[in-house]
């Protein structure tokens, strides 16, 4: 109940498809999706394995609430060892693909080995086939989506695929489903590419049932009401999307700008939600057409935009004149603030290309920002860039870079390594705004101290979605804390991390937690799933997952030394805004955090902790 109880195991080396029952003992301990699939992964692969080698595995996993009427119950995750970081990777995506997987009858799809030739996978209910992808290898996400639907003559198929970037091991390439929803971070797309697996196409016609339909309806209905009545999930997100944050974070002086040189972007207003809704001078239409929900979502924060047809990026390219996924806050920040570019249409175009070719806009934009700094510092020249004048603020440079990186051509190949490898290659590693080689997103720890600890300890490399303390420090959810203070942040981060791990394992979207607490979520899980799912149990599951991920990373070679922020954040004080004069002070919070976690001062979970959590 909730779970379908069945998983698919695809061995691409042998070309075999097997089914097996879901391990229900594990399901009871790890719930689903992130937690449960990570459990399978850590049990089945060597933590030291080459992420792009055939011994790595990649798991597509749904949660027990995926494919139900719970609000946002449409999520799935891609779990693997990440090539960008070398750490455990779990990238979460919405759209309709995850729910379709449940309707096809599968909780998870585990992909092992590597195919000798490009293949794609079709999962039409019980009919699972590994098929020749000769015709789509080298094609974009959008072309692949279209091709698969036409080849199988079924417009109801949902496709998750990699773009050309994933085929070419761009280290932050993602898996894109439903054209513009992505399992975005840590380079999970490159893992598919390394396995010669272009795409997974799913069509499901079966049903998902829950333990107690009546209770479930009651609990989900109550949950929906909370979302509706909450200012952020009921009004802010649907109207402005996550872009609602652009001005807020900028004002808080926590917007990393021009590769972290600044903490405020003077042109934030030009690329904000408000700007997207404003009629353009050129054609009188706003950039934003409407919002779109993912499967089952009653918030509907997704942006659907259309680029000005006369804009230089698409002027003679009608193939980009349709509506598609528009700028979310992280993308607008990375493509805009991090590079100093303020041309909204150029950012939208870059975002389209990220979707079309399967690039994580956060890592891509941040890497371009780092490259721009290398260029301005004279470390690289237009010779290195193939003629691109890689100056901060240059929209042309940005859009050229995205085209090249999407196809892994020319200088795009270098950008495709990510900023850690790129800056290291040119002898300036301190210019990489990364933790565990993954670029941090749109919140500057100098202005939001809790995010420093979040980035430093995140199990998949720098990331906001592992413990979004911004909610508390800026928005006051569930209660307001001082963004500039460090006291109490260790506990805050831990609480957010554990709760988020549980939410990420349920099939729900973490954005619900702007309004929901586990008090809202647990009853929904409890009504759907076998067993007894209290708030306490959810928290325990979350903490268990966190420790399991940590152990994997430790075995993969990560130590406390890797729980650190880029030097710039620790040394160069914020120049403006409320945090002016401050640096990120993660060192102060780390020991307390380790202690709270029940880890040694080396950041290793103690035996006691492991026993307590039964990891």
């Amino acid at each position, binding site marked *: 109940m909730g779970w379908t109880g069945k998983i698919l195991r695809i061995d691409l080396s042998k070309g075999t498809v097997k089914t097996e029952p879901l391990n229900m003992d594990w399901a009871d301990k790890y719930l689903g999706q992130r937690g449960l699939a990570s459990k399978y992964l850590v049990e089945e692969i060597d933590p030291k394995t080459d992420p792009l080698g055939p011994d790595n595995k990649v798991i597509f996993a749904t949660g027990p609430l995926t494919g139900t009427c719970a609000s946002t119950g449409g999520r799935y995750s891609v779990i693997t060892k990440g090539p960008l970081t070398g750490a455990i990777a779990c990238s979460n995506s919405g759209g309709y693909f995850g729910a379709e997987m449940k309707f096809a009858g599968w909780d998870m799809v585990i992909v092992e080995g590597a195919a000798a030739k490009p293949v794609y996978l079709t999962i039409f209910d019980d009919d699972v086939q590994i098929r020749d992808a000769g015709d789509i290898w080298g094609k974009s996400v959008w072309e692949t989506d279209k091709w698969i639907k036409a080849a199988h003559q079924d417009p109801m198929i949902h496709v998750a695929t990699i773009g050309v970037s994933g085929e070419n091991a761009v280290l932050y390439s993602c898996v894109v489903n439903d054209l513009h929803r992505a399992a975005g971070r840590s380079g999970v797309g490159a893992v598919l590419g390394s396995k010669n697996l272009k795409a997974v196409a799913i069509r499901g016609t079966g049903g998902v049932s829950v333990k107690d339909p009546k209770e479930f309806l009651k609990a989900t209905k109550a949950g929906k009401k909370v979302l509706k009545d909450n200012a952020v999930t009921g009004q802010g997100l649907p109207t402005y999307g996550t872009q609602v944050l652009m001005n807020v974070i900028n004002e808080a002086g926590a917007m990393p700008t021009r590769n972290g040189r600044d903490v405020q972007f003077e042109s934030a207003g030009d690329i904000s939600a408000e700007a997207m809704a404003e009629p353009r001078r050129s054609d009188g239409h706003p950039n934003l057409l409407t919002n*779109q929900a993912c499967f089952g979502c009653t918030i*509907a924060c997704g942006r659907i935009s259309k680029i000005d047809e006369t804009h230089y990026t698409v002027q003679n390219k009608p193939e980009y004149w*349709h509506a598609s996924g528009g700028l979310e806050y992280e993308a607008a920040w990375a493509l805009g603030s991090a590079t100093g570019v303020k041309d909204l249409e150029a950012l939208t175009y870059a975002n389209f290309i990220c979707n079309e070719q399967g690039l994580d806009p956060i890592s891509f934009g941040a890497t371009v920002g780092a490259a721009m700094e290398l260029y301005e510092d004279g470390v690289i020249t237009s010779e290195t860039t193939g003629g691109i004048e890689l100056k901060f603020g240059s929209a042309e440079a940005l859009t050229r870079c995205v085209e090249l990186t999407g196809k892994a051509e020319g200088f795009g190949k270098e950008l495709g390594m990510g900023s850690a490898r790129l800056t290291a290659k040119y002898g300036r590693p301190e210019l990489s705004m990364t933790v565990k080689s993954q670029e941090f997103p749109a919140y500057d720890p100098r202005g939001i101290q809790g995010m420093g600890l979040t980035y430093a300890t995140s199990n998949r490399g720098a990331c906001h979605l592992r413990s979004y303390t911004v909610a508390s420090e800026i928005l006051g959810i569930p209660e307001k804390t001082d963004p500039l203070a460090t006291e109490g942040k260790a506990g805050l981060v831990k609480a957010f991390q554990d709760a988020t791990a549980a939410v990420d394992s349920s099939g729900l979207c973490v954005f619900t937690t702007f309004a929901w607490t586990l008090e809202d979520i647990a009853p929904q899980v409890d009504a759907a799933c076998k067993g007894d799912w209290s708030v306490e149990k959810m928290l325990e599951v979350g903490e268990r997952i966190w420790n399991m991920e940590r152990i994997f990373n430790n075995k993969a070679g990560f130590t406390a030394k890797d729980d650190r922020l880029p030097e710039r954040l620790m040394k160069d004080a914020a120049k403006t805004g409320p945090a002016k004069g401050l640096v990120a002070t993660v060192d102060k919070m780390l020991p307390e955090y380790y202690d709270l976690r029940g880890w040694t001062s080396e950041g290793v979970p103690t035996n006691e902790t492991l026993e307590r959590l039964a990891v």
Partner: protein
Amino acid sequence: MLKALVIDPGKCTGCKQCEMACSLENEGVFNPSKSRIRVFDFHEDARFVPYTCTQCDEAWCQQACPVNAITTDAMGVKVVHDNLCVGCKVCTIACPFGTVNYNASTGKVIKCDLCGGEPACADACPTDAITYRDVEQSGYDKMKVWATRTSAGTESHGPNTPA
């Protein structure tokens, strides 16, 4: 007064809560492929269109049924009687809106019956793209225009519409 589902595609976000609600109500599980309402996704035009039976006056399905397995109830709703339906599928080709579908697992057809007066889809729709209200005040005639154009005769009332 007759009530009807009033669908405003302009308000639809594509969340498919209606499909979930419908399949749970009618099938006891979440299964959009068995939902009586379907949301069409025109992503390139940024448009989502929920689509289901309008309980049209012509009752093409009812007319076509050889065994009287579809009847019109007092509320004007065209209801399939499972005990009578033989699964011949004639109604599925007769309905020019394509809103009667064959369910291979039961060997019978399924169509929207407004859940006996409390449509689950309207209840589940978070943005009021689907509402259930008095027909007079609705813009629902849009589809009925097409119904009339499909009419074999010139009159828009079918033989089985309640007198």
